[in-house]
């Protein structure tokens, strides 16, 4: 995560000379008609996750990371979530450092799926790039059963300042939908807010309420989204259907759910720092799902 000053200096010197960015106008007002959603079905051959199913290019090595963080001697209080879920930050040895944090960063958010889901690893689960031997299929029942598993700070090559060791790791929580069928299960708004960006495989929702959490949803079926940029959405409103869209790169059928915010803290070398970065969503998801199990509606 080195920040090189050379490009910054060069651009500062050259900036007055010329703009250097091609832009296009935003799409015209009015939503273009969308094609009907294709029939859902089981994964096809082209759904095989070349990247391990978790936004990890095969060309990039994953930095070595320490073993999981030690659990505190004084164990945390019991959670209110009664369904079977592994503790936050519990990452098996060799699969990344994890992040031991019992803070429910978004205590009022909605479970981001209309139905049940199975948070677990896309890399180390069946069908993943480093999955268990003898389980090559992403639709393996092991992937669609409890317990939940935290995947924040699972080993990856991308930045995550919260992850111990190299400062890299998974930036969100991977969630398989209720069944191993793509383009069928709705992802919904975790909070009321505005859709501020739609990419080729990402949807960004900024919450109306402070501290204005940014929720990023990856791998929905982008051709049939229920929202467009600029839409104001309510809690629980349908956004899109969980799929494996990844800009042409195959991945498993899952929702990558990201929680970001402006945070303040200290660096590992003792400096105060304020930055926009990733927060672990696992316990917020657990609380939200428990509320759903308890019959609380969202929206």
């Amino acid at each position: 995560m080195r920040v090189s000053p050379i490009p910054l200096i060069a651009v500062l010197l050259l900036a007055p000379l010329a703009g250097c960015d091609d832009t296009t106008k935003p799409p015209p007002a009015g939503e273009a008609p969308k094609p009907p959603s294709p029939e859902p079905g089981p994964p096809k051959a082209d759904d095989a996750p070349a990247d391990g199913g978790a936004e990890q290019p095969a060309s990039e090595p994953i930095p070595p990371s320490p073993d999981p963080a030690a659990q505190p001697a004084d164990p945390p209080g019991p959670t209110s979530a009664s369904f079977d879920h592994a503790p936050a930050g519990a990452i098996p040895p060799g699969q990344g450092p994890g992040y031991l944090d019992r803070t429910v960063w978004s205590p009022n958010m909605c479970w981001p799926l209309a139905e049940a889901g199975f948070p677990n690893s896309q890399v180390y689960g069946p069908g993943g790039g480093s999955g268990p031997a003898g389980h090559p299929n992403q639709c393996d029942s092991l992937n669609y059963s409890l317990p939940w598993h935290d995947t924040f700070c699972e080993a990856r090559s991308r930045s995550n300042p919260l992850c111990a060791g190299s400062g890299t790791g998974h930036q969100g929580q991977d969630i398989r939908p209720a069944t191993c069928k793509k383009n069928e299960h709705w992802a919904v708004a975790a909070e009321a807010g505005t859709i501020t960006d739609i990419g080729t495989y990402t949807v960004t929702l900024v919450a109306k309420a402070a501290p204005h959490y940014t929720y990023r949803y990856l791998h929905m079926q982008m051709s049939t989204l229920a929202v467009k940029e600029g839409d104001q959405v309510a809690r629980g409103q349908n956004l899109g259907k969980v799929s494996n869209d990844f800009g042409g790169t195959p991945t498993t059928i899952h929702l990558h759910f990201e929680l970001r915010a402006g945070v303040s803290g200290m660096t590992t070398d003792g400096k105060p720092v304020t930055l926009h970065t990733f927060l672990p969503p696992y316990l917020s998801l657990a609380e939200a799902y428990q509320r759903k199990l308890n019959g609380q509606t969202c929206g």
Partner: protein
Amino acid sequence: MRDGRRWVTTAAVVAVIAGAALISKGEAQTPPGAPPFRFGIAAVVARPRITVEWQAAVGGLRQSANVGESLAANLDRAQVDATAVPILLPRDPKLTAGARLYSFGDYYTITANTAGGRVSLSGTTATVPLPAAKPLKVETGPEGLTVQRTVDGQLASFVRFGVLYTVEIRCDAPGDPRCHDDNYVLGLVGKTTAVVMGKAARQAAGLGG
């Protein structure tokens, strides 16, 4: 930070070119009295707010002269006026021409299209404290500058006028070099110096509506 002298040089260049008034005190704004880390699933997240350094922001506004307003000409004026923090824009008319501003008062984000991707520019005074026992593995530069590589791009943050600003590039194609290293996003940070204030920010700065 691996080479402190290089950062000192960078900071000096930034100061000379952008003007000292555009540069904050170079310290990240850490809210005082952050509560200790609480175990337990029902932990409440305290939400300290950063205090805007309005005098410095007004200095930046004056240095921007009419450039900022020109760059903001195509932004939704109601959204500009609703934004209670100084808005920073890149001195790149092509990038700002079709940009869309979404304001939440103490937070704004601007989305701009670029060929093969999109750029986001955000500013906020709303932050959450991380547990003191959980230090961040990140290098910082002038104005607390940090850069992170995301799934689809590069994310830079820095603190100016006491406000946390974010500049992000997201690429459609995995092989887009703008998202592979930090050159592009740092360049964008370097030219994001034009200050715009709508009614809410002007009132807060004591400039009237």
